[in-house]
């Protein structure tokens, strides 16, 4: 399938990106993503990526960054990790994607494993357990807020709300597993939202 016309949002330069600064090498990709990962204590990763990639290092324009975020959110996998892969792959192919991925993961993952080892060693101590009993209640609230954050987008779309409610009910009250639920619900959603001729934005 070919584009009928190049849209203003997606110019077709010879390389994937038209860099504002010289394109980063593998080492720079690694370091840049490492810096993002370490800045984002307790969330806000995409804001930090944007600050570094667009504003400080000027690797991507705002529009290119937003396209990347769209692709990263669209595809399965953690958004921030996908975004790192998008940036790295765009500049340096598969190797660049892996360098960016390593930068995003290596240090935070090692740190998390160290925390995990400390946890499994000490969690039986009453003092530790009491602190954690409080912390998990707050963390659960964070999990609960994720759905509400997206809910507003679908306020005026009864079908979307119905589909979401069906998925929720199947998982929560029907005790069905995630994979079969997605395999049924995704084709239903895709069929409903299939772009019709003339209705394209």
């Amino acid at each position: 399938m070919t584009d009928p016309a190049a849209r203003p949002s997606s110019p077709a330069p010879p390389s994937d990106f038209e860099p504002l600064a010289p394109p980063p090498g593998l080492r720079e990709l690694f370091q840049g993503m490492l810096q993002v990962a370490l800045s984002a204590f307790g969330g806000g990763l995409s804001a930090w990526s944007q600050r570094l990639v667009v504003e400080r290092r000027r690797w991507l324009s705002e529009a290119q960054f937003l396209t990347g975020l769209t692709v990263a959110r669209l595809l399965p996998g953690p958004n921030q990790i996908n975004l790192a892969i998008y940036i790295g792959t765009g500049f340096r192919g598969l190797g660049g994607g892996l360098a960016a991925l390593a930068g995003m993961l290596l240090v935070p993952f090692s740190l998390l494993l160290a925390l995990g080892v400390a946890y499994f060693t000490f969690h039986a101590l009453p003092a530790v357990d009491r602190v954690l009993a409080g912390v998990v209640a707050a963390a659960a609230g964070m999990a609960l807020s994720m759905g509400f954050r997206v809910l507003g987008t679908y306020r005026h779309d009864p079908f979307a709300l119905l589909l979401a409610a069906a998925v929720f009910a199947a998982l929560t009250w029907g005790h069905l597993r995630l994979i079969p639920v997605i395999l049924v619900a995704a084709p239903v959603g895709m069929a409903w939202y299939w772009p019709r001729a003339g209705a394209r934005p």
Partner: protein
Amino acid sequence: MTPLLAAAGACGAASLTPVGTLAQVVGQFLSLSLFSLGGGNTLLAEYHHLAVDTYCWLSDAQFADLYALAEAAPGPSSMIVGLLGLGAGWPHGLGWALLTACGAEVAILVPSTLLMVAACLSWRRLENSPWRIAFERGLGPVTLGLLFAVGVKIVQTAARTPLAVLVSLLVCGLMLRTRWSPLLFLAAAGVLGSLGVIHR
């Protein structure tokens, strides 16, 4: 078919060799990778089902603790998968635990990473395809349903007393209404816990 009975009866006795555990962990996370819609947090309820109900790698309380740990630590919170692997391998000693943790993280990332690379390299063709548009619009509502199911599941797992549920609801409201750092909520609730105000 009652999940409660299955949870009580299914695991516990089944102890595997270290390699068996590693294979189990890697296999499960490999097969879930491509179903991680909406950034991966949608898989949390499924992780709970695997780690607590099906394979007994962790207790309910441990799962909740590890979720909080992954949220509080820097970096993508989807790295909780590594912690689940760590828990699964823990009975086999530190070395196996670390290896299982890395195996779990690699397994959850490899399929989605390969798909992402493929999509990046062919994005200009995919961008205007009706499949892309239908996928994006159609899976949004599915993700919405999944996120609510996850939120409810995590609250059920982590908040077992009325006061703990109240704290969860309060944090949920504050997350939506303010731009305060989530670490602030975790720290404040930790203090309440250590004072014995919130307990399990």
